[in-house]
């Protein structure tokens, strides 16, 4: 079950840059990110907006950028893939360090979980990495995530995923109407589709199709099943 947020390549690059900057300087600013990626500050701002929407970063107006917990996780994951790829290319295939680093940068975004795990296995077998490598933490996380279903808002669920309603956070009439329509605790929902611009969304609940806005879906807490 692969229902987590999927990030585009450039988003992963941003995340990685922020992660590295924070590690190096203790904080990340828009200009630093722009410099380290070699792109314009305005495009960085757009990228940051998207990351913010997905809850991966936090940014006070004009303040430094911070990673949220899930942001750190996502960044660590990309970073780790990079390390493993680099080691694999450099140590086992004998690729030059610069080329290996560059290639790792491009491959990290598309590397599947399976190939990644096989690479890690191979590297361990040949004693290129040790037990403390980031790979283990990352693989454990992956396991844990699979075990524990995530709580999230109905609005951020992707098409095709199923969930169980935990709580309706809206108040008053809207809440009552939602409850009348069968969207209360324990109801199973499935996201069937999204209209243009992602709004409104169509869900299947209690055997019928219901169309509701992102704003409305953002008030319904669900647990993926």
């Amino acid at each position, binding site marked *: 079950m692969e229902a987590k947020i999927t990030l585009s390549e450039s988003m992963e690059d941003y995340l990685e840059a922020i992660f590295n900057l924070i590690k190096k300087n203790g904080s990340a600013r828009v200009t630093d990110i722009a410099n380290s990626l070699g792109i314009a500050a305005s495009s960085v701002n757009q990228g940051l907006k998207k990351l913010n929407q997905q809850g991966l970063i936090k940014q006070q107006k004009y303040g430094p950028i911070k990673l949220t917990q899930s942001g750190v996780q996502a960044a660590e994951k990309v970073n780790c893939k990079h390390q493993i790829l680099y080691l694999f290319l450099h140590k086992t295939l004998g690729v030059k360090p610069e080329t290996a680093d560059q290639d790792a940068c491009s491959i990290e975004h598309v590397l599947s979980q399976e190939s990644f795990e096989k690479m890690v296995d191979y590297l361990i077998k040949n004693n290129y990495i040790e037990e403390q490598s980031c790979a283990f933490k990352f693989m454990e996380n992956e396991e844990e995530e699979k075990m524990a279903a995530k709580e999230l808002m109905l609005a951020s669920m992707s098409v095709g995923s199923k969930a169980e309603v935990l709580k309706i956070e809206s108040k008053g009439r809207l809440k009552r*109407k939602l409850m009348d*329509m*069968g969207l*209360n605790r324990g109801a199973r929902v499935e996201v069937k589709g999204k*209209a243009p611009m992602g709004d*409104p969304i169509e869900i299947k609940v209690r055997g019928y199709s219901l169309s509701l*806005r992102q704003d*409305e879906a953002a008030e319904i807490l669900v647990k993926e099943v």
Partner: protein
Amino acid sequence: MECCDISHQIDIPSGSQKIVLAGNPNVGKSIFFNKFTGIYVAVSNYPGTTLDISSGMFNPENKDNDYVVLDTPGVYGVSSFNDEEAVARDVILAADAVVNIVDAVHLERDLFLTQQIIDMGIPVIVALNMMDEAERNGLKIDIDELSSELGVPVITTTAIKGEGLEEVKNSVDKSKVGNTIFNSDFLKEELDSLAEKINSRAEALLIMEGDPNVAEKNNRQALPHREKIYKKRRHRINNIIDSVISENGENSSLGSKIGHLMLKPLTGIPMLLATLYLLYELVGVFVAQTVVGITEETFFLEIYEPFIRGIVTPIIPIESFFGQLFVGEFGLFTMTVTYTFGLLLPLVAGFYFFLAILEDSGYMPRIAALVDRLLTSIGLNGRAIIPMLLGFGCVTMATITTRLLGSKRERIIATFLLGLAIPCSAQLGVIAGLIAPLGFEYFAIYVLTIFVVYVLAGTILNKVLPGKSTDLLIDIPPLRMPRLSNVLQKTYMKSKSFIKEAGPIFAIGALIITVMQETGMLTAIQNSLIPLTVGWLQLPKETATVFIMGIIRRDFGAAGLNSLSLTAIQTTVSLVVITLFVPCIAAMMTMFRERNWKEALFIWFGSWFTAFGVGGILAYLL
């Protein structure tokens, strides 16, 4: 809370036994009503077809009693979320028995309302409708078990095919007070004691569920037990569902696949555009040109009008006042009849026919969901697409339909936009005829101008009026093949009621124009408007007549432009002004009735101001 006052009073006939038809939206209540009373009310496949309470008498076979049957708007619960629900609530509260129509395919959703009505202590009979669809979807429902769990009779029906309706009709006196969710806890005690105090178990339950209106009516505080009661009720429904449904086949028919494609951006938008193009081809091209060409030109203008003049003129000379009144330029027997039956009737019927297909197929709510995002930016809700599309048929009709919108704010915006920038089918035909010869350039200018005005007006109203767009929450019914008989019946009924409503107003308009012309008032008004028409809009002074006629019927105005010789620019400017100008007198009267006079006057003057303002700017720019 301004929307749900008790101001919404409904006349409930007294005396006979009151049978109320209740159910979720789009479960087929209106078909039952038609069958029970023989009175036609519109049946569609979109939620919210029933806006008013229809009532009728019926007398079941072999029974002595007469019954009054009341239809209600579809609701998910008896409460006061909006006007529709408040109306349904008041009718249900007055019921002697409720025929609860339940969609067998969506039992899990629909039984919630059933249980609520049972909890109110009102005798209920359940009509388990859409059994054919349930069977097709592989649903097996244990009817006896359902009946004994609920404690009320359950009759299976397939209303669109007429199956089971007769049985329901003859069983209304078998309705029973069912098994409530209240057994022996504090909720039951509280409900019992409250019911005794206010002498109504139904109202007591609604107060316990926190309904502010019912509480106020009884001079009591609404109680905070809703969550607990709802939880119990949902729990019970889940148990019932578990014990009565044995097979739940997943619906993966062709219909549900197409229905799904209609909502996806990549396929949904082309499908919507294709639908609108088809509408244009049918009404805008085929009906407006081919059919109207035959009815108006060939029949009414060439055969009917000379014929009627031939009869009347030997008795009343055409130059006299009455000659003009009856068979003159704007004569009651000439222009009124020609326009009503030769031009309007084919256009309106064509439009209603297409719309009936869209409604019955279940495509409408899908369009509503698809355009919701766009309409929220002008303060409306996706649902507003229904009055907006209807407006292209007839603004008067569409104004009435604005009732299905959830708040007063949305109704004002929709009504204003309808009056301002939506040309009705009659007008559209004439406009299309006038603008087509001018070439694409002018057509584009016209469309763009109207569109910009529409969006600007909506955006400004959205900013100015307090509040925000209401919740969408629209249920998407399964796609169904429209039945030709229902489509034709609906087209016929709507066209007929349109002619009935519009015909007399049309005649009065013609009368006023003739009187004004004969008394010289028309010339006087034309002259007084010269600064506006000639100076500001750069049009010949006769166009003033056209604008005045535009008030009587918008298409009168547009058609009047035919007889003036105008340049391309002048034609475009006049068409823009006529489109934006006040809607016809029939639509205006409807606006006064639906809104109050203050808002209607605001709409009236607002559209005058916009029409001449935009027209002037356009004349200056071109």
